[in-house]
């Protein structure tokens, strides 16, 4: 399964992705009166429409200025600096409200996962209890750092006699559990460097939950490690927040904010796109997987991992022609195969003759459940269930692979276009249509890929037929565009090609939109039934 991981896939193409192609038609977006955003936890039904104003640390009222489609969600990317700023604002607010030190305000906020409202409510109720729970308390009669004679450290077993001048440097938090400063340093450095810990490091005494605050850490560790500590601490702001997530793209330092609650993930697919260009799912952090919802994606990925050995043969790049058995290598993303030897035309996915797929009846996306119901004995049943899985997995994996091949093909074509640009009157702008087409194709194949995951878990009824029809139409459109791109490019035919490719690109985008919009409506209406429980 690893060779098909989305992560790798997007690595390859990130730099060539077209920012604009993300969500369909730019020109159809309109300005609308979106205010801020809210964690719509309470309003179970209002998924996208009822965003009210809410006080938020970023003061972001510019999220989602465009009118969103029903399958889109609002989101915004944030840099590390803006995350630091946002934290500072929250800390200052709480510190001045409760009249406490900002380090304590920070511990309290972190303890409450930056849910300021809940902290304020609980703190107003009983500040002592909250302080104790979070590990904040102060006893001015007990100095933190102290040089002591007659002290033995319970951790390193060294005593004051072993120290210069017969006095040992010791440190205790407000709880009074005192150890030598060296042990504190080793302890903190182990936690920070080896375990990547920051906000949760507690007093070394067993079961003492007092959190070691930022200032104390600064007193005991080396400056370099203190810097690391502060970086880690900053990261926890995003880690703890239910409305923020780090962009999973390697080397990307941005975080994305999105306010779709976890409880809605069985109905909403929060597809977001980081400012770096990486499209991913805010709900689970995997590469974007609409229209399939997170829980079934999780099931599916697990299943694919478990069954990868059985299904391995599928990823092979060559197949034999079903008619003359000569070996054929797939070199583009198109599934319409023509044997070089006997000219037999067939479908890469099902090995059936292409003539049965072509115009009005493109039935390669549908698994025939009847053959499963015919199965009488257990053995046949389990074979049928494997076949059913392979049917969907086959198509799922194929779109993944095809998208990669489409990219390769584009690379070659682009080179050719560049050459032509030099020798003809074509401008750079005029050859951009191919890039747009390939970007769209990639995106549509990703959508198609996940429709097969979704189809695998859909309980068969009238609704699934509609789903499969949409899937079939999208697949047909995708293969048509893919096939068009495989055609050899001659200078004279470019204007023609450009028109055809542009038309097909617009059409395939439309098909994707219909697919996504209908599934989203289906989720809203509770139209989809699953054959599994999650």
């Amino acid at each position, binding site marked *: 399964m690893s060779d098909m991981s989305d992560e790798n896939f997007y690595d390859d193409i990130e730099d060539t992705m077209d920012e604009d192609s993300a969500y369909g038609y730019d020109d159809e977006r309109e300005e609308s009166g979106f205010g801020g955003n809210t964690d719509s936890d309470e309003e179970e039904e209002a998924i996208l429409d009822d965003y009210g104003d809410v006080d938020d640390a970023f003061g972001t009222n510019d999220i989602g200025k465009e009118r969103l489609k029903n399958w889109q969600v609002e989101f915004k990317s944030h840099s590390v600096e803006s995350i630091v700023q946002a934290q500072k604002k929250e800390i200052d607010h709480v510190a001045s409200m409760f009249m406490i030190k900002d380090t304590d305000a920070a511990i309290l906020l972190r303890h409450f996962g930056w849910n300021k409202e809940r902290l304020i409510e609980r703190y107003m109720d009983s500040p002592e209890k909250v302080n104790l729970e979070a590990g904040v308390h102060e006893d001015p009669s007990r100095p933190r750092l102290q040089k002591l004679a007659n002290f033995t450290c*319970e951790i*390193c077993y060294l005593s004051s006699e072993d120290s210069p001048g017969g006095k040992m440097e010791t440190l205790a938090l407000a709880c009074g559990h005192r150890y030598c400063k060296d042990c504190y340093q080793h*302890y903190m450095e182990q936690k920070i460097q080896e375990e990547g810990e920051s906000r949760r490091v*507690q007093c070394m005494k*067993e079961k003492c939950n007092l959190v070691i605050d930022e200032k104390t850490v600064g007193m005991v560790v080396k400056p370099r490690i203190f810097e690391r500590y502060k970086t880690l601490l900053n990261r926890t702001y995003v880690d703890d927040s239910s409305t923020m997530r780090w962009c999973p793209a390697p080397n990307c330092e941005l975080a994305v904010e999105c306010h779709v609650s976890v409880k809605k993930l069985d109905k909403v697919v929060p597809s977001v796109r980081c400012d770096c260009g990486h499209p991913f799912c805010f709900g689970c952090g995997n590469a974007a997987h609409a229209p399939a919802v997170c829980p079934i994606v999780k099931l599916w990925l697990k299943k694919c991992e478990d069954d990868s050995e059985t299904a391995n043969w599928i990823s092979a790049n060559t197949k034999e022609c079903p008619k003359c058995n000569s070996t054929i290598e797939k070199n583009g993303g198109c599934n319409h195969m023509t044997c070089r030897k006997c000219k037999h035309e067939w479908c890469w996915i099902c090995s059936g003759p292409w003539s049965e797929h072509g115009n009005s009846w493109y039935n390669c996306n549908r698994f025939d459940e009847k053959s499963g119901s015919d199965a009488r004995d257990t*053995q046949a049943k389990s074979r049928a269930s494997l076949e059913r899985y392979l049917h969907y997995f086959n198509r799922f994996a194929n779109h993944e692979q095809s998208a990669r091949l489409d990219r390769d093909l584009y690379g070659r074509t682009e080179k050719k276009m560049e050459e032509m640009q030099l020798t003809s009157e074509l401008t750079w702008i005029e050859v951009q249509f191919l890039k747009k087409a390939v970007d769209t194709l990639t995106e549509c194949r990703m959508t198609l890929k996940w429709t097969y995951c979704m189809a695998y878990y859909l309980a068969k009824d009238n609704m699934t037929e509609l789903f499969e029809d949409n899937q079939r139409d999208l697949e047909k459109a995708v293969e048509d565009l893919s096939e068009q791109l495989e055609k050899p490019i001659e200078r004279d035919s470019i204007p023609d090609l450009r028109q055809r490719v542009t038309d097909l690109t617009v059409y395939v985008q439309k098909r994707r939109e219909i697919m996504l919009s209908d599934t989203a409506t289906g989720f809203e209406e509770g139209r989809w039934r699953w054959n599994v429980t999650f």
Partner: protein
Amino acid sequence: MSEARLRRVNKEIADCQNDKASGILIALVDDSPFHLVGTFPGPENSPYEGGNFDVDIVVPDGYPFQPIKMKFITKVYHPNVSSQSGAICLDILKDQWTPILTLKSTLMSLRSLLCSPEPNDPQDAEVAKHYLSDRADFERTARYWTEIYANGSESARPPNADDDAAALARRKKGVKEDPALVAGLKLEHVEQFVNMGFERNAVIDVLKRLNYRGANVRNVTDDRVVNELLGI
């Protein structure tokens, strides 16, 4: 740093050797104070009573700031101990470790883990299933394991394949371990399927996997067992 580690471990070993009351013994493997074997008696009023349990102890470079590594040498039937490898699932051996804990206090925590399993955070899922589905039946198997695996050693000693103390004691007493009983299964259940012509080890494997034990037996049909045995 390594000096501090050596000083502390040596002192801990000495402390243990001076304290006979706790019943906890620690011995060196290959003369290194950083690879040890700890032994403690199974807790009273538990299925482990009467057994002696050997634990492999590795003191990591970062000790005491990194947790000690421990695993059972003696085979233990317990939800939080791997029945295969002896690996232990215990919070203080992982993220709840603090430098104030010692070899002795950690071994004592292991001992109390034997009395109070955490089946919801299992190391061995099959054993945990057995524990949750029929407590009395689980305890019977745990006692059987104690009897056949934990009865020979009375002091901490390095593990030695040729001279496995428990095996030796078993041979002396003429106790033979039965894989069906080791798997927590009833002999008559195993024989029932063996009589249908299936291989004994395969029957044990399948029944174990299906948790064919205690009260759960009525939830597993004969057909199911046969299908599994046929590989369907």
